[in-house]
């Protein structure tokens, strides 16, 4: 039984804060543990910032999911930016093209249960993450 997702535009610093707040609200509602809430909100913050900084803006959609055994949260981040030419490299700790720490993408992947990325140079980037209740 999944409820319809909520979609937020990601076009400014303020929108990144809004994404964090929405994810936190939904994470509390599906009763993720405190540590898992913290991990998911942190991952969402990293990916929303990537959508803004590297993707030139886009959107994030947050929905609850249920696989019959467990509830969880799924978040999709999408942009129509330049895409990622070398995905393996982009997922390497410490690699950055933006002057950051190079931990956003690789770190976010470690903080969630499922991490799926679809990207191609010139075709934008769509990242889907899922965190399940334990």
């Amino acid at each position, binding site marked *: 039984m999944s409820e319809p997702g909520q979609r937020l535009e990601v076009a400014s610093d303020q929108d990144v804060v809004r994404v964090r707040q929405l994810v936190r609200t939904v994470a509390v509602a599906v009763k993720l543990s405190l540590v898992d*809430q913290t991990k998911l*909100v942190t991952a969402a913050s990293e990916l929303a910032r990537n959508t803004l900084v590297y993707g030139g803006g886009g959107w994030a959609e947050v929905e609850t999911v249920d696989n019959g055994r467990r509830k969880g949260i799924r978040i999709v981040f999408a942009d129509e930016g330049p895409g990622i030419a070398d995905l393996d490299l982009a997922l390497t*700790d410490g690699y950055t093209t933006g002057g950051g720490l190079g*931990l956003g993408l690789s770190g*976010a992947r470690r903080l969630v249960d499922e991490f799926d990325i679809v990207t191609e140079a010139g075709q934008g980037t769509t990242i889907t993450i899922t965190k399940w209740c334990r």
Partner: protein
Amino acid sequence: MERVPVLKIGDILLVSIQIDMEDQVALQLQEDLADRIVATGCHGVIIDISALDIVDSFVGRTLATIASISRVLDAETVVVGMRPAVAITLVELGLSLPGIRTALNVELGMELLARHRAEEFTDLDELGDEDEADTPAAAAS
């Protein structure tokens, strides 16, 4: 844009982050602190993050940058009040905040700064007894 207040208490600048900061607010805090350190000549900075329910790589990097800037301006930074879930998440994210001193709360942070300051004076005073620097810290605990 919101702004994080910087309070001066004796020789210490105290910052308590109570809002979910936009990136620009974090960068503004970095500048404000550098200005206040120079304007006041304070030798210690305490940043209380007990109200923060997440620290992502941007905020983590900003804290590390603040600590580096402070050090160059002859002030020591202590980050206090990190929540356990935040610590767990930060380490898993891959950020171990090297170069940042931490304490569990503001009180312990102030003790740490006082001890650090006392040690610096001991180092300067070549005739001083090395053991003397430990005494006030031991009495405080």
